[in-house]
């Protein structure tokens, strides 16, 4: 019996809890279920005695490896389970049965995908993350959230089917569906990379994230930020470690969102762009390959789940309590939500990579790998990106929400209340983890796929990181004083999504209009031709037509004669 359970993927209790939650109308019981699911999954995670592949099922000619527990998957699996638990805690006050269910199924799908040992199982859960998560966006129940969600779903499903297609090609060539290093040399590798790229929000295909996360419910954005992109990072690390192209993509991905994060008015949008920038560093690290870089990417992913989750939680709390997260309407919230402000600062510190936070431990590993490999320029670019992160996230988020002077016409702080206990507990726990894993970084490093022999707390490293942070802070304070900091204001900043939301949409509409016209005119032509043909036939064959006229008997004899002639001619020539 024990063995039976040990062979099941930890995704199962989470997903089942989601299904149960969907069917449980009683608030208390449902919340118990949402908390129990991740806990049970955690228990299953700890119950695994040794790495290996469990839960192998044969279905329709395919072998499904549902639970592969190895150095890479166990880390992500654990982090996802922890995130699922934190999310459940965060959602404790939520009354939406649908969101509870969707969040758990989505989290379970993420866990399942991480533990998938073959590409088909990966695909199953890959698509399930898409399907389950869209409800977290739609649950905002506004038309713009609906549209963003639909676009989100379309592109996520595209990622899934691309994965399936690439996997088929790959499996055909490799003779196996196993999900190991794929590489771009493998046929199908490029297709699979595109599938991963979409979910990892590579530049040009990133808009699903920056568009939809700000539109999701407060709870939804928290859940969304934890799984999808980190799952993609996991998949990239497993399938495409050491592919050089990822370094270039990663650098672009780390730098390009800086500007958008800085000027975005919606603080959750800032977080989304910031997340993309962080992912860029991870992608670059994966592209570099090697034990340290991959370890660094993994550590950053863990850190990112924690601090990005924390920041999304705090901004979700602000949204829930104040009704908006537009920087241009916020300010002074410390008065109403001091604890949230505290946790936000913890998250900020982590994303700034202040020593003694998890961000410091993670980022150090990844960036040092580049430095050690002698890739100076890449290292410099990524360093600059993380310096910018101090500005656009570390400072902007807490400052704009809590410490900037209240805006005129903005949120009336006196009417805002502190976040409910469940949210606070979740935020507190996340903040604690951010700091705990920063101090006790060994616990984090021990879980990494490759044993890291790296001490982040060297004098040089600490002092240099502090230099960066202090310089950025000072620069911010100075420029803000001089009025050179671009103050937030409402507005839509164009991004690549313009290409399809405006241009593509316009082209499609135009195309459709033209097709419509073309059809109409062709219809017209066909109709006219048809009418003419019908008239011709009518003239010939109808009761008043040529062939039916009551021909005088004399004329008929001519026909007879003609036929006689015909037969005679045929007979003549035949013999």
């Amino acid at each position, binding site marked *: 019996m024990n063995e039976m359970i040990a062979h099941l993927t930890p995704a199962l209790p989470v997903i089942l809890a989601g299904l149960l939650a969907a069917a449980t109308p009683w608030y208390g019981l449902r919340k118990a279920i949402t908390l129990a699911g991740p806990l049970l999954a955690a228990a299953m995670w700890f119950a695994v005695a040794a790495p290996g592949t469990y839960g192998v099922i044969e279905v329709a000619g395919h072998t499904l490896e549902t639970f592969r527990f190895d150095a890479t998957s166990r880390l992500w699996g654990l982090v996802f389970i922890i995130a699922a638990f934190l999310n459940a805690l965060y959602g404790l006050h939520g009354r939406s049965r649908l969101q509870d269910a969707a969040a758990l199924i989505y989290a379970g799908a993420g866990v399942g995908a991480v533990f998938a040992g073959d590409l088909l199982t990966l695909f199953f859960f890959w698509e399930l993350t898409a399907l389950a998560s869209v409800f977290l966006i739609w649950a905002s129940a506004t038309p713009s959230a609906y549209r963003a969600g639909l676009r989100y779903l379309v592109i996520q499903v595209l990622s899934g089917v691309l994965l399936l297609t690439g996997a088929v090609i790959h499996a055909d060539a490799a003779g196996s569906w196993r999900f190991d290093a794929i590489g771009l040399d493998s046929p199908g590798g490029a297709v699979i990379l595109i599938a991963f790229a979409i979910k990892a929000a590579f530049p040009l295909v990133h808009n699903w994230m920056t568009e939809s996360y700000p539109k999701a419910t407060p709870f939804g954005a928290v859940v969304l930020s934890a799984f999808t992109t980190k799952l993609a990072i996991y998949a990239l690390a497993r399938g495409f470690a050491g592919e050089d192209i990822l370094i270039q993509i990663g650098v672009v991905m780390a730098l390009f969102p800086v500007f958008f994060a800085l000027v975005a008015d919606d603080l959750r949008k800032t977080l989304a762009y910031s997340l993309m920038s962080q992912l860029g560093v991870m992608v670059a690290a994966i592209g570099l390959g090697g034990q340290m870089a991959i370890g660094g990417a993994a550590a950053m992913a863990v850190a990112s789940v924690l601090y990005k989750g924390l920041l999304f939680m705090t901004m979700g709390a602000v949204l829930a309590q104040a009704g908006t997260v537009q920087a241009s309407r916020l300010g002074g919230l410390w008065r109403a939500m001091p604890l949230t402000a505290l946790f936000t600062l913890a998250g900020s510190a982590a994303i700034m990579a202040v020593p003694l936070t998890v961000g410091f431990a993670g980022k150090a590993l990844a960036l040092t790998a580049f430095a050690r490999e002698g890739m100076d320029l890449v290292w410099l670019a990524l360093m600059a990106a993380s310096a910018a992160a101090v500005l656009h996230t570390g400072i902007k988020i807490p400052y704009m929400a809590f410490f900037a002077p209240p805006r005129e016409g903005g949120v009336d702080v006196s009417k805002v209340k502190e976040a409910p206990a469940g949210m606070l507990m979740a935020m507190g726990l996340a903040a604690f983890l951010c700091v705990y894993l920063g101090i006790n970084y060994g616990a984090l490093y021990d879980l990494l796929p490759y044993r890291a022999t790296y001490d982040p707390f060297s004098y040089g490293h600490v002092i240099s990181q502090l230099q960066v942070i202090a310089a950025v802070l000072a620069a911010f304070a100075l420029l803000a004083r001089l009025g050179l900091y671009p103050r937030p204001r409402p507005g839509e900043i164009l991004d690549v999504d313009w290409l399809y939301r405006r241009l593509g949409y316009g082209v499609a509409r135009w195309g459709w209009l033209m097709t419509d016209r073309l059809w109409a005119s062709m219809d017209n032509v066909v109709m006219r031709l048809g009418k003419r043909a019908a008239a011709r*036939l*009518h003239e010939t*064959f*109808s*009761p008043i*037509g040529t*062939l*039916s006229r*009551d*021909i005088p*008997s004399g004329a*008929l*004899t001519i*026909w*007879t004669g003609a*036929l*006689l002639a*015909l*037969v*005679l001619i*045929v*007979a*003549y*020539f*035949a*013999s």
Partner: protein
Amino acid sequence: MIEAFLALFPAAVLAQAPAIMVAAPMLGAALATVLPGGRPAWVVALFCSLITAVFAFVLLFQTWGGEVISYAMGGWAPPLGIEFRIDGLNAPVLLLLGVLSLLGVIFALPSVADEIAPRKQSLFYATFLVCLTGLIGVTSTGDAFNMFVFLEISSIATYILVAMGAEQDRRALTASFNYLVLGTIGATFFVIGVGFLYMATGTLNMHDMALRLVELDDNRVVQVAFAFVIVGLGLKAAMFPLHVWLPNAYSFAPSFVTAFLASTATKVAFYTLIRFIFDVFSVEAPFVSAAFVWVIAALGVIGMIAASVQANFQTDARRLLAFSSVGQLGYMLLGLGIGTAAGVTAGVLHLLNHALMKGALFMALGVFAIRYGVRSINDLRGLGRTMPATASAFSVAGLSLVGIPMTVGFVSKWYLVSAALDRGWWWAVAAIAVSSLLALGYVGRLLASIWLQSPPERALMAAKDRIPVMMLAPMWVLAIANVWFFFDATPIVELARGAAEAALAGAPR
């Protein structure tokens, strides 16, 4: 079973069967003329058709298995005397004549009472019996000139029968006149052809003629004779483009006449074509085989498409079906033109099947007519609701015409396409497909009007209360036969195959 049936009759009667076939309606006609009213005359007609039907079975069974009955009329032995010659080819046609005339006569009583003035009814039945005599004679005789005589007997009777429609519609008179002129031309051509043949062979007995023609393949006189015979008989059979007499004749004749003619008269003419082409002339003669492809099959294909298109444009239901008949004749001609055993089988099969379909269709139109006096397609609307049973029978026969499976039309089409493929005539298959679609079109128009339109309000008031069961019964027999012979196609297929074998074996080599 066959023996048991034949054992019912004394041997002397059996020996005289061919003569009885012709004599019964002839005598009946004479008797009917002198009878005072319609009903006694009808009894006579019924009795005569019954005899015909029974003896048609007798003859069929006697010739089953390929035997040939040669009956010397009046005891004068052929080739000098007139010979009646029954074989596998004409026995099915006789059966068709017998059965359909019997069904037709049953149908006739209420229909004729409705459409023909009482004082003319006895003469009407007499004329009908004369016509029947002629048709049976044409089918049975083995003598070319005698065939001409019977052909004219039947034709002249037909002209009169068509003209009887004048009571309903004066245009019947012009139709009849046109028919008369053209029919006479056809007969003339035929008799000229026979004359040439007589010139070339010195005999009028067809069997004899055939024996002598074997050596005369490239005789121009024979070829000319062939041309005249084909055109003459083709005209009688309403071969496209010599069909122009038919639509008017069918549309203005009394209902019963149309039903009877559509299922018998052209069929008999078609039989004569087969008889002459295969039995008198030699299929292997180059001019005959060339005519198969270039005249018969070609005209068949053109006819089955052109006439079907024409049918699609008609507004009068009977006229529509009349054009459809011309088109359907195209199928038979095509089967004939294919020239193989399979082809002739398909042609004869369709000949039999088409009689079943058109008989039922025209009878149903007769029923509609007697109840509502309707003829145009537009007037058929809503009949599916007011007369569902008759409309159903009509629909079954209509679908059979299209060749929908579970109707006998499908069987025809199956054999015809197979035969065409066998010969490698892909174009013919395509033509059949096109023609079937056209048939779907015109039948669809009829059925759409019947089932989909709502009935005009006056129809509900003008209706006669009851439709005589005597009209319904024969219609239903034919409609059911349309379905029955799909599920049990063996009998008619065997009949057709026997006919084809007889036709191909008939020419002595």
